[in-house]
C-alpha cells in the first residue's frame, strides 16, 4: 500500500511540475506566474480541488506520442473565494505553450458543465499559444466545444476570463463570450491574427502590444473590461470582483457585513452641481459618496469615459451603477457609451443585480461619424437593455435629462421603480437655448426677445417639477440625503417580482 501511495505522490509531483523547472523559471523570467501559482492566488488557501490531473493527450502524429505530460497543459478544478464556490481552469504555458488539444478542451468542458449544473461561476485563466497544431481539426473541435459551453453558460453562471499571456486566433472567442475579460499589462495580448499575418496580408507593421495589448483592449477596442499591473494584482482584484457577484442566475446578490450607515448624510453633495449649467463635475464623486465605504469596482474604466459602469454595495448588498460622466463629452450618449452601458445593464439583469442609474445627459452626440457608425442601433441597445430589465431599477437625475436620452436612461417609462430627481434636475426635450431657437425661429434676429424667450423656457422646464407633476419623477430629493433615499428604495424592492412575456429570446438590435 505504501508503495502505491508513494507512486501517487510521485505522479502528482511530476504533474505539478508541468513543463519542468526550466520552463517554470522561463515563465517567471517573463514576469508571469505558473498556472498553479495563479490558482493558489485566486482561491482561498488550501481550497483547490483538482480534476483530471493525469489526463494526457492522445495525439500520435509528429512524434507527439513520445511526450505525454500529465494534465496536458491546463489545470482545472474548483475551490472557494472567501468561502464561495467557483470553478476554474488555468492554462499552463510551460506545457506545449499552453496549446489547446482535444483533451485539454475536454478538461475545460468538464468543469464548465459542472459549473452550470451546480451553479457556480467559471473563471478562466488564459495563457496559451493557441491550437495544438499537431492535432489539427481535433483541436479546432475542442475550441468549438468550449465555445458552445460558453454560450450555454452565458446568463446562467458568471464567466470571467483573465488573460495572462498570449491569447490568439480562435482562442480569443472563448473569452469574448464570457461576461468579463481582464488583462495583465505588458504580459498579455489578444488578437485574431498576429503581427506577422498582419504584415503579410496588409503590409501594416505593428507590435503585439499595439495590436492587442492591455492598453489597446481597455482603451480602444473595449474587448477587455480592465487591466492590472501584474499577475498578483490581477488575481487579487478578481477575488474582489467575485465578492460582488451572485454565484448563478437563481442566486441573490451577495451581502456582507458593512460599517457604513445607510442614513449617512453627505452635505457636500448639495454643492456638487456647479452654478454654471455648462460646467462639468465628477460623477465618480457621487458614486463613491453613495456607495458603502466608498467602494466602487469600475468596469471598463478607460473606455467610453462619458459613461461610468461598475459595482457598489448598498447596505452590504451589490448594486450595479450606470452613470453619465459630465467630465467627458458632457456626459452625452454615443455609440461607445451606449454599447458599454447596455452590456453592463444586461449583465446585471441576467444575474438579478439591482441597477442604480445616475443621470446627467445632454442627449446623443451628433455628427456624421455617429450616424455612419450606426448610433441609432447602438443607442437602441441601451434602451432595449433598460426596457427589458426586470431587476430593481432606481434612477436619480442630478442635472440634465434631455430628449431621447432622458427616455433611455432608466426613465419611469421603461419600468423604473424609483425615479428620483435632485432639485437641480432639468427634464426637457432639449436645452433652453436650442428649444427657443426652434420654437421662435422667426424672432431669431431679435436678440433681446430670444433671450427673454429662453428665460421663460428655463423657468418652465429647467427644473424637475414639470416631470414630477406628471408623475414621471416619483420624488424630488435633496442631494445630501440621496444615499439614505436610494438605500431605502432598494430595500423596499427586495421582494420585486417581474416577468417578461415568454419568448424564445428577444431580438436586441445587435
Amino acid at each position: 500500500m505504501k508503495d502505491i501511495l508513494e507512486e501517487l505522490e510521485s505522479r502528482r509531483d511530476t504533474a505539478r511540475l508541468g513543463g519542468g523547472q526550466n520552463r517554470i523559471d522561463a515563465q517567471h523570467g517573463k514576469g508571469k506566474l505558473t498556472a498553479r501559482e495563479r490558482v493558489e492566488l485566486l482561491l482561498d488557501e488550501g481550497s483547490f480541488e483538482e480534476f483530471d490531473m493525469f489526463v494526457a493527450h492522445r495525439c500520435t502524429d509528429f512524434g507527439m506520442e513520445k511526450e505525454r505530460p500529465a494534465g496536458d497543459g491546463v489545470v482545472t478544478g474548483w475551490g472557494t473565494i472567501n468561502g464561495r464556490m467557483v470553478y476554474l481552469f488555468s492554462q499552463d504555458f510551460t506545457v506545449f505553450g499552453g496549446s489547446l488539444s482535444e483533451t485539454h478542451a475536454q478538461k475545460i468542458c468538464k468543469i464548465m458543465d459542472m459549473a452550470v449544473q451546480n451553479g457556480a461561476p467559471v473563471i478562466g485563466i488564459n495563457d496559451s499559444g493557441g491550437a495544438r497544431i499537431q492535432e489539427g481539426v481535433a483541436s479546432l473541435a475542442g475550441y468549438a466545444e468550449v465555445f458552445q459551453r460558453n454560450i450555454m453558460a452565458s446568463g446562467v453562471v458568471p464567466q470571467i476570463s483573465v488573460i495572462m499571456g498570449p491569447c490568439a486566433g480562435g482562442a480569443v472567442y472563448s473569452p469574448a463570450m464570457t461576461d468579463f475579460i481582464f488583462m495583465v499589462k505588458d504580459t498579455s495580448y489578444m488578437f485574431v491574427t498576429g503581427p506577422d499575418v498582419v504584415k503579410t496580408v496588409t503590409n501594416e507593421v505593428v507590435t503585439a502590444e499595439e495590436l492587442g495589448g492591455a492598453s489597446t483592449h481597455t482603451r480602444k477596442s473595449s474587448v477587455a473590461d480592465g487591466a492590472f499591473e501584474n499577475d498578483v494584482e490581477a488575481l487579487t482584484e478578481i477575488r474582489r470582483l467575485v465578492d460582488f457577484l451572485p454565484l448563478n442566475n437563481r442566486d441573490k446578490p451577495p451581502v456582507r457585513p458593512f460599517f457604513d450607515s445607510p442614513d449617512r448624510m453627505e452635505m457636500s453633495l448639495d454643492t456638487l452641481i456647479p452654478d454654471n449649467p455648462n460646467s462639468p463635475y465628477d460623477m465618480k464623486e457621487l458614486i463613491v459618496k453613495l456607495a458603502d465605504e466608498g467602494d466602487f469596482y469600475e468596469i471598463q474604466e478607460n473606455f467610453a469615459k462619458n459613461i461610468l459602469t461598475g459595482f457598489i454595495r448598498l447596505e452590504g448588498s451589490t448594486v450595479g451603477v450606470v452613470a453619465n460622466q459630465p467630465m467627458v463629452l458632457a456626459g452625452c450618449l454615443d455609440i461607445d457609451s451606449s454599447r458599454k452601458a447596455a452590456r453592463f445593464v444586461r449583465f446585471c439583469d441576467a444575474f438579478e443585480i439591482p441597477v442604480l442609474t445616475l443621470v446627467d445627459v445632454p442627449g446623443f452626440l451628433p455628427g456624421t461619424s455617429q450616424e455612419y457608425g450606426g448610433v441609432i442601433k447602438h443607442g437602441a441597445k441601451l434602451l432595449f437593455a433598460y426596457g427589458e430589465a426586470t431587476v430593481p431599477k432606481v434612477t436619480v437625475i442630478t442635472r440634465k435629462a434631455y430628449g431621447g436620452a432622458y427616455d433611455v436612461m432608466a426613465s419611469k417609462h421603461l419600468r423604473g421603480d424609483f425615479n428620483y430627481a435632485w432639485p437641480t434636475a432639468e427634464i426637457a426635450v432639449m436645452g433652453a437655448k436650442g428649444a427657443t431657437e426652434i420654437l421662435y425661429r422667426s424672432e431669431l434676429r431679435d436678440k433681446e426677445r430670444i433671450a427673454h424667450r429662453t428665460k421663460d423656457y428655463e423657468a418652465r422646464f429647467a427644473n424637475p417639477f414639470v416631470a414630477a407633476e406628471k408623475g414621471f419623477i416619483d420624488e424630488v430629493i435633496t442631494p445630501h440625503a440621496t444615499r439614505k433615499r436610494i438605500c431605502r428604495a432598494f430595500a423596499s424592492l427586495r421582494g420585486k417580482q417581474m416577468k417578461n412575456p415568454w419568448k424564445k429570446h428577444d431580438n436586441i438590435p445587435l
Partner: protein
Amino acid sequence: MFKKILIANRGEIACRVIKTARKMGIATVAIYSDADRNALHVQMADEAVHIGPPPANQSYIVIDKVMDAVRQSGAEAVHPGYGFLSENSKFAQALEAEGVAFVGPPKRAIEAMGDKITSKKLAQEASVSTVPGYMGLIADADEAVKISNQIGYPVMIKASAGGGGKGMRIAWDDAEARQGFQSSKNEAASSFGDDRIFIEKFITQPRHIEIQVLADQHGNAVYLGERECSIQRRNQKVIEEAPSPFLDDVTRKAMGEQAVALAQAVGYTSAGTVEFIVDGGRNFYFLEMNTRLQVEHPVTELITGVDLVEQMIRVANGEKLTIAQKDVKLNGWAMESRLYAEDPYRGFLPSIGRLSRYRPPLEVATQSHVVRNDTGVYEGGEISMYYDPMIAKLCTWGPNRAEAIENMRVALDAFEVEGIGHNLPFLSAVMDHPRFVSGDITTAFIEEEYPDGFDGVELSEKQIRRVAAAAAAMYRVTEIRRTRVSGRMDNHERKVGSDWVVEAQGHHLPVTIEADKLGATVVFDDGGKHRVESKWVPGDSLAVLDVDATPLVMKVGKIPNGFRLRLRGADVRVYIRSPRQAELAALMPQKVAPDTSKLLLCPMPGLIVKVDVEIGQEVQEGQALCTVEAMKMENILRAERKSVVSKINAGPGDSLAVDEVIMEFE
C-alpha cells in the same frame, strides 16, 4: 457696544471675526463676490451683501462697493481682516466720513506705517535700528541696478505697498536685479494697484520675529510677546509659533518696548504687529509695521489668552485696555500650520478645484492640549483661482514646545483634504525635521533643507514597524469581514490566517497577529512586538489607533492587497500578504514609470502668458522657457538641463490643464 459689524473680508479671517462678534452679541454682515456666493463666511454671518464679480479688484477692494454694503446693512463698525482694504487709509477715511467705526488704527498710522519707505524713515527717527537700503522711489530697471550696486548684493527688491511675499524678489547680480525689478513692479501693479518699488540690503541667515502690540485710544499700549515666523517659502509664511525658541527675556523686552514706543510715536491704536529681522547674535532690525490683524494672530491668543479680535472691537468702541503690561503672561507654546491649496510635489504650485473631502481634526481645548482650526472652507466647497490659496490655519498648543509640536503632528495626520493639491505632507515633514525640532531655524530653512523641492518623506525604521503592525491588524480585520459574505459553502469557510508579510518602503516584515477582543498584538519575526488597539473598521478613511499606547493616526486608502497610508508627510503603499502570496509577489517585475524628462509639462492649471523660446533653439539649464500665470502669480518654467526645443504645443493665451505638454525636447 456696536450692534452690527460688517466684515470687509472673506475666507477664514471673516469666519474668525464672525465667531468673536457673535460671542460678544454683535450681529454680523458678510460681503461676498460671485465666486463666494456659497462661501462659509456667507453662511456663518447673520446677513450678507453681494459686492461684485470674483476678481478682488472688482469686489473686495473696491471701496465704493464696500461702503455701499456698509450703508445698506446699517453696520456701525467694519472689521477689515487682513489683506484687501485692511491697510488702506482711504477706506478708513471713507468710513470715518460716514461715522462708521473702523476696527483698526487711525488713518494717519496706516499711512505712516503702511508705506514701507515712510515707515522706515519714521522708525529711524525713533532711533529704531533699521536695515540699510534705498528709501526713495526707483524710476526704472537701470536705476534699480545702479542702486543695487550701491547697497551691494544681495539685495531685496520689494513692492512699496506689498505684503505676504507678493511683489518681492531677491537679486544676486545685475541681471537678476533687472528682472526682479520688472516682475516685482508687474506683480505690485496687479496685486495692489501700486507699482512703487524699493530696494534694501538682503540680510542673510535672518529670523523673522514679530511683536504683537495692542493700543487703545487713551494712550495705553502693551505688547503681547512675539511670534517666530521664520518658516517661510518664497517669503510667504508657512509655520509660525509663539513664543520664539530663539529669544531670551532681555531681547524680548527690548523688542517689545521698542515696538510699543514706535506704536505710540505714530499714535497707533488697535492691534498691530511690528516685524523685525533678527540675526544670529540676536541683533534685531525693524522691518515694517503691519497695521492690521496678522494671519498668525492665533498663536499669540493661545499663549496669552487674549482674544485679539475682541480687543480690536473694544478699542474701536473707545474702551480702555483692561490689560496692563504686567498682566501679560506667556503661557506654554503654540504652533500654527498654514494649510495652502498648493501642491508640494509640483513645486508648491497653486491647485484649485472642488474640496471633495475636507475633514479637519477635532478641535480640543484642555489644560494640556489645544487644537484650533481657523477655516474658511468646507467639504464640497470650491477653491477658486481668484484669492489667496490659504484655506485653513491649524493651531495647536501644549505646555512646552515639544508637546505643541507633537500635538501638531497628530492633528496634521488627522486632517483629511482631498480634491485639490495641498501642503499637509510638507507641514508634517517640517514638524518632524530635526532642525525644526531643535529650533535652529532661519527664514532660509525651507530653501536650505528642501533645495530641490519636496518629494515626500520616508518613514524611519521605527515608524515603519509601528505602521506595519497597525496595517497588518487592520488588514486582518478587513479580510475576516470578507469571509462573512453570504452564499458561502457551509463548513468550508475560509480561515483567515495569523501569519502575514508586510511590505512597506522596501522592507519585508513577517509578522504574526495574536488577536483578542480589545485589539491585536503583532509579533515580528525578530521577536519585536507592538500592541495595536483601535475602533477602526473597514472603510474608514481615517485610522486613529493606539500602538503601544501612543497615538498613531493615518489616512487610509484601499489598494490591492493593502493600504495606501498617509502620515507624517509620507505617502506609503503598504502591502499585507500571506507568506505564500508574498513569495509569489516577489517574482513580479518592477516596472519603471514612463520617461517624461524630455517633455515640459504644465505643472498647474493656468494661462500661458509668454513663450521665451522657439523650435530648434538650444536652451541652457535654468533658462526661462515660458511663463504660466495661475492664481495671479507668474510662474517662470525653466529648462532642467541643456537641450534643444523640438516642438512647442502651446502659445500665449492658451489655457492649459495640469500635465498638458507645453513643449518637447530632443
